């Protein structure tokens, strides 16, 4: 019985950690992107190359982080793949002539700079990163 309780506690704490991890990532967009909210499916389509526009939001240009906790959390929460599988998907599109690989940058600040300076740009950062000049998209 004691072991079962420990196991339940462990599962609960992992779940809480997971929810907190997702809550740490926010999705930001250039101020000219019309949409203020986006569904999880539409976000996944944009970041996997299945779509190049948001419904009612015009063309969008995704930007990625090269690595790190925020990147892993974003992939886990919204794409459902790890980094290796995610980039393999993009390689399929690039080497079959169906898409151009999104830019990847080293730091959240570079994401914010790119998003604020490029029409249609959309990216993800840790919510504690300063992000003046961009809009935060609500995930439905």
């Amino acid at each position: 019985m004691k072991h079962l309780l420990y196991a339940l506690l462990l599962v609960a704490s992992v779940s809480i950690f997971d929810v907190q991890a997702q809550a740490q990532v926010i999705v930001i967009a250039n101020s000219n992107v019309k949409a203020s909210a986006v569904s999880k499916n539409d976000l996944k389509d944009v970041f996997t190359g299945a779509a190049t526009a948001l419904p009612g939001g015009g063309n969008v240009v995704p930007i990625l982080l090269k690595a790190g906790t925020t990147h892993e959390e974003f992939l886990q929460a919204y794409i459902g793949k790890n980094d290796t599988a995610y980039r393999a998907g993009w390689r399929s599109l690039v080497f079959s002539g169906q898409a151009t690989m999104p830019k990847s940058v080293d730091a959240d600040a570079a994401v914010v700079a790119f998003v604020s300076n490029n029409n249609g740009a959309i990216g993800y950062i840790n919510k504690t990163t300063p992000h003046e000049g961009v809009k935060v998209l609500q995930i439905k």
Partner: protein
Amino acid sequence: MKRILVGAMALILGAIPASAQSLEDLNIQIHGYATQGFLYTTQNNMLTTSSSNGSPAWTEAVINVGAQPTPKLRVGVQGRYFLLGNYGNAITLDWAAADYKFNEKLGVRFGKVKTPSGLFNETQDIDPSYMWSLLPQGIYPISSRNSTLAHFGGVVYGTLKLGQSFGKLEYRGWGGERVIGTDDGYFVNQKEAGLNLPNGLSGVTLGAALHWRTPLAGLMIGASDGKDEKWSSVLTAGNGTFTGGETINPLNQPNYFVHYEKNKVMLAGEYNRLPVSGVLTLTGLPTTPLHIDQRAWYGMASYKVTEKFTAGVYDSQTVEHHAALGAARHSLDWAISGRYDFNQFLYAKAEQHFIAGTYLSYDTALNPGGLKPTTKLTILKVGVSF
């Protein structure tokens, strides 16, 4: 040569609107990958290699250059060095195309473009993107990949949203000219019988594909149908002593497929039928009819065991319904496979095949003592991509 020009024209036309922009604005990217494979078979020699002695004769290197001068316009070109046994050992143009996407519902691509038939045709050559070393050979024969991968012409594509309850429908339509090169795997047996197609075989090809992304997350159901018009070409025999022609009648090649991928699991299956009829004529000799009715299917599954290691299995079966009963009528292939990603650039693969039947992947020149009905094939591969 004219085909290289078509590709070059596609690039130039695509680049014109961007000529006033800076290189940074063009978003030029260069990507590539290279793989080295090793094959070992317990009995017959396969894929024109001396695999029964162990053969490293499987090398590929790809370079891809792309640019996106505007959000809706992309241009690109991809070249490949391919060597597998006696196949290839040459640099070829995979594709060279300009792509304009008006919106999510409509896009066009033209030049030398990948043919979007079946489940894997567009991606069958992209080794870094999947876990298998060798895709099911009944539908994706590596010895004919250069011919089936792309055509000269265009593709129209788009995605239609069907509402939250019905998912999405992706469509593709294609048309143009397909060229089967003189050294293609389809002609190996003909060549060994002394029949040569000095110009290869080419003709008009058309087709369409539908991919239904169902409301069940990760599940796609699809179908495609490729139609080849009547193709004909010069045929020679006896080192040019006899000349004539090979004619292939119009044919339809349907594919039906399903793909499911969620979290760590991937499941897929596909059925394909290739019915070929035609005639071989050589002056002074009786006409030889050609009849093939090849039906192939596979089912595959893979599981991501750890962040870096994926394992999988497939069962692939191919039967030539016009062939006489016996081992040469079919190919039944069980494969178990594993892939390890050291990092996002470097990976290794290992694959074991248990093959019954000799319908696919063999030639007689490298098996002078005849073919044994069963073979085990081991493949080791290492790849790097950027």
